[in-house]
């Protein structure tokens, strides 16, 4: 808890920069407008104008906060939490495709890692390509993939999940390969002296030893998965989701909407990473591996 004060300081600094930036970036429009209306703006009037523009270049925090409240808390109070205008509804859509992609990505990652650790041919031939696969800008071709999948009559949710999966399996493979190989020679020799089969070695030694690595890469993986979902929603905007909100916001120049969707996505990411951290703490504690 000793981190609270420093974190608060940094957060305050971020807010100060944000307000300063809002004034800097929005002032041109304010002056532009005043010039066309033929009035002189004093500094104070200019600052006031930059705080309240309808389509600011950088909306100040309080505008974003108001929009966030309007689309979450206020909707809940009116009992319309799942209306299409509510960010809770869109967050839920994003969450569902993120989770789908994450579950599949994690499964695929673990399976690949097991194969790589146990089969030399696979290690040598597949591993370089797994690394190369991440250099393909999947996000850039997401729309195309989605359309090709649609030709196979694949559901939209799954199409979005595929993008998330592609981004999230990589950290899991890398982490799990490292984790499954983390038992040292002594421990492996010990298993051998007990005449343990490969299966037994796997279940009793390799798998438990990989747990800390798994959790570390799950945290990276779920964040990547969320990015995949958001970008996929840019192409499948008809289903809604935070990505679709950003797109439509950008389409209509509604910067406040873009920023509030961004903040909502950020909150979602933080919540997901934090909940994996919680599972990690509990699991590792019960396994007796907590540091």
């Amino acid at each position, binding site marked *: 808890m000793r981190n609270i004060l420093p974190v608060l300081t940094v957060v305050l600094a971020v807010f100060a920069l944000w307000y300063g930036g809002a004034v800097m970036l929005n002032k041109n429009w304010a002056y532009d*407008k005043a010039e*066309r209306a033929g009035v002189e703006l004093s500094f104070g009037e200019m600052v006031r104008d930059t705080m309240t523009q309808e*389509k600011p270049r950088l909306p100040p925090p309080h505008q974003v906060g108001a929009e966030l409240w309007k689309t979450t808390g206020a909707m809940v109070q009116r009992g319309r939490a799942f*209306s*299409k*205008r*509510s960010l809770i*509804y*869109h967050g839920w859509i994003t969450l569902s495709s993120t989770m789908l992609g994450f579950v599949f990505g994690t499964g695929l990652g673990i399976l690949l890692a097991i194969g790589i650790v146990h089969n030399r041919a696979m290690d040598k031939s597949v591993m370089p390509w797994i690394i190369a696969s991440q250099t393909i800008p999947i996000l850039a071709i*997401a*729309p*195309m993939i989605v*359309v*090709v999948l*649609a*030709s196979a*009559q694949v559901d939209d949710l799954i199409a979005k999940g595929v993008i998330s999966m592609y981004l999230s399996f990589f950290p899991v493979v890398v982490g799990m390969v490292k984790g499954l190989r983390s038992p040292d020679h002594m421990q492996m020799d010990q298993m051998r002296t007990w005449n343990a089969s490969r299966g037994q070695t796997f279940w009793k030694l390799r798998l438990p030893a990989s747990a800390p690595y798994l959790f570390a890469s799950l945290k990276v993986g779920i964040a990547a998965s969320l990015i995949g979902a958001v970008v996929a929603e*840019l*192409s*499948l*905007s*008809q*289903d*809604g989701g935070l990505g*679709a*909100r950003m*797109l*439509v*916001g*950008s*389409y*209509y*120049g*509604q910067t406040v*909407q873009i920023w509030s969707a961004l903040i909502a996505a950020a909150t979602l990411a933080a919540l997901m990473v934090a909940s994996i951290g919680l599972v990690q703490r509990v699991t590792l504690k019960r396994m007796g591996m907590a540091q």
Partner: protein
Amino acid sequence: MKKIVTTALAGAMALGASFAQAADDVTLQLKWVTQAQFAGYYVAQDKGFYEEEDLNVTIKPGGPDIAPAQVIAGGGADVVLDWMPSALASREKGLDLVNIAQPYKSSGMMLTCRKDAGVSSPDDFPGKTLGVWFFGNEYPFLSWMSKLGLKTDGSDGGVTVLKQGFNVDPLLQKQAACVSTMTYNEYWQVIDAGLTPEELVVFKYEDQGVATLEDGMYVLGENLKDEAFKDKMVRFVRASMKGWKYAEENPDEAAMIVLDNDATGAQTEKHQKRMMSEVAKLTAGSNGALDEADYRRTVDSLLTAGSDPVITKEPEGAYTLEITDAALK
């Protein structure tokens, strides 16, 4: 209220289904996000015009990354809405797209310029930066420029082209002298942002004699060999046109129907109502049938487009009047 209506409708539909045989499924892929540009289809859906024709229509909204031609090639839709230049270009790529109906008579496309950027006529274009949409929407612009004899590759004496995103920011931020706008949509975003019509100059493609046909209904040629499919399309076109005419007469109601169908919840009532009234001006001249003179003009403008024509040879079988003839009898 809306909910009650849909529930009642759903109930009625379930009841009807048990008497009638199962309705025919039709999937329609739009060219862009849900907005009043497509009001006719949403109205036909909402008012039950499709149902009267025994059709079960699914409307799939598009977006900036969705190429309708690709969707239909992948089997994701039966009918797509597309602009004729991009449909004809797809034909040359080997995709047999056929126009079966043309609810939009006039083109809504225009180039909107700032007066303070020094543009008052097309003669002022050289050396200026112009914003253009790509993704198949660049063809009308390119053919206009080559008609004017202006190079678009950034060389001297030509224009600088930039790919504008989905909004009019480049004009507002003075990054471009002109941007592409539609009469019913982006132009009003410029106005909403605080610029006045007096500060702007607009060049309508219609007025410049380079208008091309927009938002036609296209299907795959091979499907048209199937009589059952043709019959389905006749009913689809008939119901859609009924929807369009209803939307023209009741623009405000149509706009509200569109809003109800917007999944992102980001569209505003004011903008959609205005869009609907502008759209009505463009669809007013059409009963759904493609005017062969308009087709001719579009093809000519694309074929003659200077050194880099959009299409290289006269298209054959790119449209059929068979469907509209049967539908409008």
